[in-house]
């Protein structure tokens, strides 16, 4: 949350190592671990959406599940009623999330701190109630099942019944989004978003329209979470209204905070650790999982608010600084 690793120092090799691992990994795994890994990537992308608004822009949005669910429904409706193409589904899901973020963001980003938090909760809870209520549209808790069309790439066709196709599609989407978001936070506009988090008054005094920048961050965050949502029906061939429920927003908060808010990588790390834990222990933990989520949230935010990667980066930066100071004099 507080330390800001300057990304240009981040060398290329971790990206390459992780990338290589992710490309090879599914072939070394059984069906179930492969499914979990696919899921982790999707949830990581969702948490990345939260990290944009929370870690980078410093705003606590407790309604992330709305974007995810809207992305999922946008995909399903696009594919089922407009044209049976995965690409169209991705675009329509993102579009729905984008429009919703823009409109809701236009209202909520006028307010800061407490009002902002409360607004996001109220909106997402009402959306959940609406979704459960409009059974005709959403299928409520039973949801909507969908027949996935084949994935067409330059005239080639891949069946999405294959878990490998699902995996690589989801990995590809997440990777492109991740790199794009990283790039954004390297750009002048992205840095300005961080500046607003750090010191809004000063940012305004050096020429930045901070309300606009908050809206940009909010919309980007919602759109990325929506993109993650489009992957849900790809993975599960269905969607349901419970995706709107606040517990999903809570998980995004948890994953990001555990992994390290503001680091972008942390969202994926947190999701990897906790989704795996959830899956491994689900048989005997299922009822206690929300309680565990609560305890973990409280413990982490009190004891290690920077999360795993935040703490690690801070330690590395400290060592580097000490090294430079020692070498310089």
């Amino acid at each position, binding site marked *: 949350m507080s330390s800001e690793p300057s990304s240009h120092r981040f060398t290329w090799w971790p990206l390459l190592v992780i990338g290589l691992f992710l490309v090879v990994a599914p072939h070394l795994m059984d069906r179930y671990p492969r499914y979990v890994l696919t899921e982790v990537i999707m949830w990581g992308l969702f948490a990345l959406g939260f990290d944009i608004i929370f870690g980078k822009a410093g705003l606590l949005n407790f309604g992330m599940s709305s974007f995810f669910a809207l992305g999922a429904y946008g995909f399903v409706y696009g594919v089922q009623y407009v044209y049976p193409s995965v690409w169209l589904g991705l675009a329509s899901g993102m579009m729905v999330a984008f429009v919703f973020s823009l409109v809701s963001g236009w209202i909520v980003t006028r307010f800061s701190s407490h009002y902002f938090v409360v607004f996001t909760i109220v909106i997402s809870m009402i959306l959940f109630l609406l979704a459960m209520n409009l059974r005709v549209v959403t299928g409520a808790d039973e949801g909507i099942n969908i027949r996935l069309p084949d994935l067409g790439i330059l005239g080639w066709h891949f069946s999405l019944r294959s878990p490998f196709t699902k995996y690589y599609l989801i990995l590809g989407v997440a990777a492109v989004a991740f790199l794009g978001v990283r790039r954004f936070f*390297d*750009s002048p506009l992205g840095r300005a978003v961080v500046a607003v988090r750090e010191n809004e008054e*000063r940012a305004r*005094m050096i020429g*930045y329209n901070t309300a606009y920048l908050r809206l940009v961050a909010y919309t980007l965050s919602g759109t990325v979470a929506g993109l993650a949502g489009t992957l849900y029906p790809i993975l599960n061939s269905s969607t349901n209204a419970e995706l709107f429920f606040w517990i999903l927003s809570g998980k995004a908060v948890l994953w990001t905070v555990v992994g390290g808010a503001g680091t972008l990588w942390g969202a994926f790390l947190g999701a990897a650790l906790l989704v795996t834990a959830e899956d491994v222990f689900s048989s005997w933990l299922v009822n206690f999982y929300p309680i565990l989520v609560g305890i973990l949230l409280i413990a982490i935010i009190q004891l290690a608010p920077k999360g795993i990667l935040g703490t690690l980066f801070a330690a590395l930066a400290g060592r580097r600084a000490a090294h430079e100071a020692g070498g310089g004099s």
Partner: protein
Amino acid sequence: MKSEFILRTESLSVSFGGLTALNRVDFEMREGEIQAVIGPNGAGKTTLFNVLSGNLRPTEGRVVFKGEDITGLPPYEVCRRGLSKTFQKTSIFPDLTVFENVRLGAHTGHGTGNPILRSASSDRAVVEKVEELLLMGGLQDQKDQPAGNLSHGDQRLLEILIGISTRPELLLLDEPSAGLSAKETRYITQWIKELSQTTIRNIVIVEHDMDVVTELADSVCVLNYGEVLCRGTVGEVKCNPQVQDVYLGRPV
């Protein structure tokens, strides 16, 4: 008439509830001068600065900058039109590097190209400007440190560097010597003097330290109870009996 004053206010008034903080203030600033605004605590100096920089909307009156009415514009617009302000209470981005602190401002004044599609550190014009400014402030060795790690004196310098990084035509300095030792104050005073000769010609400065005012200011405007008591050169103001009454007569 039009080009004579780079900044002027026309009967500027600000009141909070029943309290009048500024009362029909006509402030005038000539092209190329350093003007000091002095006065006892609560005289309205900070309020005047806040109105000039767009942080506060005046109850009445206008602010005219470069012949253009900028009354009520938001601070970021005021800044983009070339009027920059530094803070009395150091206001930097403590967790960002010193380099980036200056870069953020420099992007406003010197940025080119698309703000999304390129990396912030690849804008040549901006980076060169930042290096130049850091060199000027003597902070080039600490540029990769988080700004919060700097000493108080260096943070005061950084504060001003951020202020001028936006390429302003007029700089409002709010007590640059606040919290500095006598030695540091002398240093920063000389530094500002050089700055005014090389980089930015128009400076309005609020300052309590009369030595700093005497050293820097071409003219002085004295505020008292939200009104302009008098104005003139440092010498003239010092000799004014009214000013001596309210301000200089007492030990400062």
